[in-house]
């Protein structure tokens, strides 16, 4: 049976990617449908109950700058805030928060429910409807068919998900959830390549069975560093969250505070792991998927770093209304009885009761080099992919892609240019460029080191960096846009004041900041400024101090960006025949033909492609004519 309504955008999946995609599309005014196998697991944190951290925190702030939900949803359901890396420089400082897992989900679900233009429906997507290389909609397990102009796939680890606990194997996308086989088949028959990745998750423990007194307490910061830009957001979203009148979960940022706890593995843990290593599916060869290097299982840690006597573990609370604890650092696929023994060998966990076992999960992903920079499939038109299905890991990475895919699905429906961000503009830009240009050999996680212009991507400037994109695509309210512009003016005012005002020593305040990057504190600068500028608020002052202190570095970065800007703007036609180019090295031609970059700049980032190859392609584009005129 065909559902009677035709949608602009159909989103398959209600995780972090799906929720952002559906919200972005419907907020832009497109008629949107979100299909999920289970409405109760909208925005579920399948792994640890935390948002943010290095590079991820910056990405969440970028999501807020582009009108997304993850930042505000975190702020209003967090039970611990911490600003990481305070001493290593302002560009690499990142906010991180522990969330109340259930409150996070409920608030997100409620937000989706209240969203105009968005319809939610619970059904399992079983296949795509594709005709002449274009997607027309999807089929579900209820024999209901849905038609839409575009489809955004955000199915996470649910494609042929296979969970391992020792010799035990269960099909499913997450413990307690289903897995989709037929959808994988549907992708393959549409010509989309799939590969296998692996990831894992640690056991969950009952808090009342844990002896916290032998552990080290990790408290949050007294003052929360929020993810959303509360200084420019519309006020109705910010205050009275407890009395929304609509029963939405959430509380004022910092209203609830919980601690994490640190303990370590013991020599006995190492013995248990080593003597049972043959029972780990990974070491027994039963897992074929590739796992992430930055998130190894405990067996990997003991095998690969045998000289390290102990490994640090964090116990993270899962929420206010539950006594469940997540054991960060103890991911494993060892058999359950070994897990019990292992857990009890850890100081403070001698009597711990496991509520859910640890497991490894293998799943299908679609190598993201099959995507355009808009996240639209190169193989099936109007079909977009976002999140873990693109080979990434992490809620933040997923949400960022979901947001962009949602926006670009609407752009596609409306015949507008897609939203594509440069690597110098945002971590989201780095993420998507890396994925579609290079692909990934392991589940991709964002690191600040991946951004060559890291110094320009400080978390506080996300709104300022992305205002062009959010304004062009109408992602923010008019009020917020004008508040961001006003904030820019205020920052410029403070910068001018710092550059012009002389302190007692005769040098300008700006010079004092620059000369003593290590020693000038925010508070000491604030004291030197006139009260009318201090009144602009902390966000404005901090950004101004940043711009002044790093002026030389930011200028240098900008020069490098300008140097490459020309090549970034030169488009390579999608049907460009790299293999037919006379005078380009065979090896480069094959790589380029496989990855099919969309711009000259992207082509230059393909490994092994030389500047000479790029010049040849460029000359050929010029010879073909027409392309040069596209250059502004």
């Amino acid at each position, binding site marked *: 049976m065909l559902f009677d309504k035709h949608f602009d955008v159909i989103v398959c999946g209600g995780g972090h990617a799906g929720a952002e995609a559906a919200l972005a599309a419907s907020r832009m005014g497109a008629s949107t449908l979100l299909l999920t196998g289970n409405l109760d697991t909208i925005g579920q944190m399948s792994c640890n109950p935390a948002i943010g951290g290095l590079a991820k925190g910056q990405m969440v702030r970028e999501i807020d700058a582009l009108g997304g939900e993850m930042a505000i949803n975190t702020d209003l359901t967090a039970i611990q805030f911490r600003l990481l890396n305070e001493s290593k420089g302002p560009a690499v400082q990142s906010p991180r928060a522990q969330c109340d897992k259930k409150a996070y989900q409920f608030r997100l679900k409620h937000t989706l429910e209240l969203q105009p233009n968005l319809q939610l429906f619970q059904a399992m997507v079983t296949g795509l409807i594709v005709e002449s290389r274009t997607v027309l909609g999807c089929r579900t397990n209820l024999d209901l068919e849905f038609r839409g102009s575009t489809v955004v796939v955000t199915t996470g680890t649910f494609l042929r998900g296979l969970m391992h606990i020792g010799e035990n194997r269960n099909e499913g996308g997450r413990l307690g959830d289903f897995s989709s086989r037929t959808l994988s088949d549907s992708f393959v028959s549409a010509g989309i390549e799939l590969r296998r990745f692996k990831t894992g998750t640690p056991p969950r423990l009952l808090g009342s069975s844990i002896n916290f007194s032998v552990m080290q307490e990790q408290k949050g910061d007294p003052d929360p560093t929020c993810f959303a830009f509360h200084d420019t957001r519309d006020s109705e979203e910010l205050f009275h969250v407890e009395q929304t009148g609509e029963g939405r979960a959430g509380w004022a940022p910092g209203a609830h505070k919980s601690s994490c706890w640190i303990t370590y593995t013991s020599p006995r843990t190492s013995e248990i792991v080593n003597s049972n290593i043959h029972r780990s599916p990974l070491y027994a060869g039963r897992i074929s998927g590739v796992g992430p290097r930055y998130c*190894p299982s405990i067996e990997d840690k003991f095998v690969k770093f045998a000289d390290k006597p102990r490994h640090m573990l964090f116990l993270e609370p899962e929420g206010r209304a539950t006594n469940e604890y997540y054991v960060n650092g103890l991911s494993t696929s060892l058999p359950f009885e070994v897990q019990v023994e292992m857990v009890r060998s850890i100081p403070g966990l001698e009597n711990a009761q496991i509520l859910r076992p640890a497991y490894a999960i293998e799943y299908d992903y679609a190598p993201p080099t099959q995507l355009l920079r808009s996240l639209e499939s190169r193989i099936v038109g109007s079909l977009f992919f976002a999140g873990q299905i693109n080979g990434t890991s992490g809620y933040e990475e997923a949400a960022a892609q979901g947001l962009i895919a949602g926006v670009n699905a609407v752009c596609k429906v409306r015949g507008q240019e897609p939203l594509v961000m440069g690597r110098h503009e945002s971590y989201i830009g780095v993420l998507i460029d890396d994925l579609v240009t290079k692909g990934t050999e392991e589940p991709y996680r964002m690191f600040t080191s991946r951004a060559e212009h890291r110094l320009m991507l400080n978390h506080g400037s996300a709104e300022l960096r992305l205002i062009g994109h959010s304004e062009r695509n109408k992602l923010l309210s008019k009020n917020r846009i004008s508040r961001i512009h006003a904030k820019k003016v205020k920052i410029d005012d403070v910068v001018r004041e710092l550059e012009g005002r002389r302190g007692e020593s005769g040098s300008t305040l700006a010079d004092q900041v620059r000369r003593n*990057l290590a020693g000038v504190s925010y508070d000491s600068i604030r004291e030197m400024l006139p009260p009318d500028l201090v009144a602009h608020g902390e966000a404005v002052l901090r950004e101004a101090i940043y711009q002044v202190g790093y002026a030389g570095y930011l200028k240098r970065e900008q020069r490098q960006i300008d140097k490459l800007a*020309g090549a970034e703007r030169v488009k390579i036609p999608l049907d460009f025949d790299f293999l037919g180019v006379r005078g380009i090295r065979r090896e480069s031609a094959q790589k380029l033909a496989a990855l099919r970059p969309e711009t000259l700049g992207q082509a230059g980032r393909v*490994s092994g492609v030389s*500047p000479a190859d790029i010049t040849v392609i*460029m000359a050929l584009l010029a010879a073909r004519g027409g392309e040069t005129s596209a250059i502004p």
Partner: protein
Amino acid sequence: MPETTDTIAAPATPPGRSALAIVRISGPAASAIARQVFGIDALPRTATRADYFDESGVVLDDVLFTRYVAPSSYTGEDLVEISCHGSPLVVQRVLEDLIARGCRLAGPGEFTQRAFLNGRLDLSQAEAVMDVIHARGERALAAANRLLRGELGRRIREFVDALLLVLSRIEAHIDFPEEDLPAEDRGEMLSRLDSLGQGFNKLLATNNYGDILRHGAKVLIVGPTNAGKSSVLNRLVGIERALVSAEPGTTRDYIEEGIEIGGHEVRLIDTAGLNPAPGEIEKLGIDRTIQLLADSDFFLLVIDRTARVQIDPTVLSLMPDSRSVLILNKTDIGGDRPTLSPALARLPAIEVSALTGAGCDAIIEFIGGKLAAMSEDIGESGIAINVRHAEALRRAESGVSDATEKLVAGEPMELIASCLRESLAALGDIAGRIDNERMLDRLFSNFCIGK
């Protein structure tokens, strides 16, 4: 029009000896640099003859240059073409000078790329250029690969490795602050960066030694008229070849003799005497001497030990103390030695008599010792780095020394990482781009990350 904020320079003619070589400069500063170098504002599109003055005011060559004004040039930017004599050394000096003036050495095909981006490439040009670029790119790649398979490649790989080690530690602490990592040890980092810096400088020193191996060490004999420069040369050569006369100014241009010291080819060059009041012809000779000074490896400043001597400060400024020696000639005459001016007194001195040959062995020992030290510095590898390598190594070195300064000042780690990345990118210009994946590989193999 795309923003191109820097000005690039590179030879437009193939490397090697030829009658003429063309060096091209393109970018916003091209015209201003031409004005500084030639001291004149030539009409656009008109070949103008002029002396090329380097930053210290020394004439490097007598050249023809042509200025093109944006957008009417090959690249669509302000462009200057300098047509100089085709000696690789002259081209190298000109390039080094342009780099010192703020130009960046152009990458392969970069002029054409700018032409393309500025819409200056028409269909037929594009096709012709494609073949040329490709051929040149292939040649350059083959040459680079040959080089990298050898000793230079090994050294660069060691540098990359050492840099990645330091950088991956810093990055581990930046990206994984919650992990149980070994404590950051700024002292250890400093000592690693210090030895990297020394490595860069050692390799940079082979820039000169490479030239010496290829072309022989140039030993310039300079001094006032009638100090006995030609006699010293004759003593060193062991044969009476130079025309000697007691009348000042006999050697008007220069005379060159080749000898061998410690397995190195050494070219002794005798120059016109420095006369405080030179005649017309002598003036030409002295200009030539100044030109030779910029080109030489070692300097023998010959003076009459019994005379009061004043040496032109321009000449002295072109003779680095570490590569110069003062030859106090005419010990055979005897008598008191007048006090030397401070500028001369700080040079190492050797007393000789060119007439009897007494003390001349010490000159040979001096040159031999300097050459041996240079060769020792680079081991037995005989790496000969070129101007492109030297430029990249200097950038690599400055990245490391900036990082060191910031480490000492306690500046944020993200800035130190940024300096080291610049350094790594510079090495990438020699050895091929170094992807961030390499750093991550290093990081994950050295540190157990995984909260």
